[in-house]
């Protein structure tokens, strides 16, 4: 019923980003392998049966975490553990470090990568929700060169993004952010977020993003003109979260309810930072 071995596939390990992009573009049914903690289980369950695996796990330099203006540029291969431990991230965007610290378990954090999490776009993942709220930018390289996609429009549905065939996430650019919080309700079995809510407060805007309820993160952005109460934001959520996902652990109705409760908590926590 559950094969424990993946279907046969070709394994390729490029030596550079350009070579990786070439391989991705040249082969139709291709998946990128980084940490492998999401892809390999899917392959073992035969939910994914790519004919070609392009292993970018050892590409040099793609795991750098570096200064980017006031913010931080995090290479796609930076593991959750290294993001959590990065002094630069802790200093410039503490919410991202604490989010990384709360992903999965230690084994997952040591293998899983930020680029992999973003490209995989699991509705229960934490990074998509948080980088969307941060107004981060996903850096993508493809056959036509490099482009930058706003994180809040990068995710298009369950396991789907704006990435086209042959394109590779190479980095995410995160603006410096102090007043922010992320709260989630973890599934007791998988550890994934059943619902996660991130809130970012800046002088000129407030951004609340709900993940896990629908296929992709849902953003509620508030401008300086708005003077909403927390209750008003929370009341707005059910309409914004139509078509909620449902599973045996949490129905769509309960997910929406959780989103409202966690949004309230995230907003309060962000204002308190």
């Amino acid at each position, binding site marked *: 019923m559950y094969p424990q071995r993946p279907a046969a596939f070709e394994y390729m390990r490029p030596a550079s980003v350009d070579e990786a992009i070439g391989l991705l573009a040249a082969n139709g049914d291709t998946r990128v392998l980084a940490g492998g903690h999401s892809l390999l289980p899917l392959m073992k*369950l035969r939910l994914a049966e790519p004919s070609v695996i392009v292993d970018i796990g050892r590409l040099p330099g793609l795991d750098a975490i570096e200064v980017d203006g006031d913010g931080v540029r995090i290479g796609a291969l930076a593991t959750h553990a290294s993001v959590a431990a990065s002094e630069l991230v802790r200093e410039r965007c503490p919410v991202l470090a604490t989010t990384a610290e709360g992903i999965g378990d230690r084994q997952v954090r040591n293998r899983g990568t930020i680029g992999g999490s973003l490209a995989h776009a699991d509705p229960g993942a934490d990074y998509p929700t948080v980088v969307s709220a941060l107004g981060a930018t996903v850096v993508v390289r493809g056959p036509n060169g490099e482009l930058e996609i706003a994180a809040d429009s990068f995710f298009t549905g369950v396991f789907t993004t704006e990435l086209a065939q042959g394109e590779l996430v190479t980095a995410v650019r995160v603006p410096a952010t102090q007043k922010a919080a992320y709260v989630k*309700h973890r*599934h*007791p*079995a998988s550890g*994934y977020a059943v619902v996660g809510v991130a809130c970012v407060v800046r002088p000129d805007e407030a951004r609340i993003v709900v993940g896990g309820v629908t296929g992709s993160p849902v953003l509620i952005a508030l401008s300086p003109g708005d003077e909403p109460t927390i209750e008003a934001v929370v009341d707005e959520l059910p309409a914004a979260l139509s078509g909620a996902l449902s*599973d045996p*652990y*949490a129905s769509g109705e*309960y997910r929406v309810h959780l989103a409202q409760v966690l949004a309230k908590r995230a907003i309060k926590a962000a204002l308190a930072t």
Partner: protein
Amino acid sequence: MWESANVRVHLTGKVVVTTGLMNQGQGHETTVTQVVAEELGVAPEDVTVLFGDTQGTPFGYGTYASRSAAVGAVAVYHALQRIKQKARRVAAHMLEAAEDDLEWPGAGFAVKGAPDRAKTIQEIAGAAALGYDLPEGTEPYLDDTYYYDPPNCTFPFGTHVAIVEVDAETGEVKLERYVAVDDVGKVINPMIVDGQVQGGITQGIAQALWEGAAYNEDGQLLTSSMMEYAVPKAEFLPKLEVDRTETPTDLNPLGVKGAGETGTIASTPAVVNAVVDALAPLGITHLDMPLTPERVWRAMEGGRHVSATSSSV
């Protein structure tokens, strides 16, 4: 139900016990070895416990129902008594003394009042195994199989207390504190008993709070992988506070009672009752397990609705 044990004290003085029990991680080797070491005065490293191979073990009913110490180890104990009885006969012959004049100072037989006239259990086993010079009508070897049929079940007792906090908004249940005091009679190995009690408590809490099989309308199991089926994790639990009283049972010579299921039996109702107690102000008297956050939230919503209605009347 009875249980079997075979004990052989070999020529070398090494002891091999075969039992109808089947260890699944309960530490039977350790517990049984302790009984043998205590009764024969041999070093624990000289004892081997074998099980699980029907080619080499006597028939037995096995490990279940908290019976391994209370029935299985008692069978070992009885076999050891018969081994010692035979060893006394052999030792008396070796020491040219009457059986009644011998005493057991701890690891062999000695003539009463003449402690230097003694034979160790290893010396006696060696003589019994060689069989050159045994008392009239005595079979060689120290080897005995005992089938122990207990006169009654043992009755461990205890009290478990769970303190829980229910998130009034989400329905999440957090276990704040768990205290268990059990009486499993004489404790052969405290660490093993504590481990069994803690493991049992954890399993019972998991039944109360997390573990549940969900099926769709077509009978398809929806919680078929570890991604959906929640087994307990250490981070879900507070430190389990385990203590005991020790009242030996007179139903068996070891004074031991069942220990393996005290945790599983007590912790499920303790936790569920604590949650129901927390929700009593909302008129909630029953919740189906597992008490998932959504289930508790729905019950609270129903209770709030009822409370609101009744207060407005």
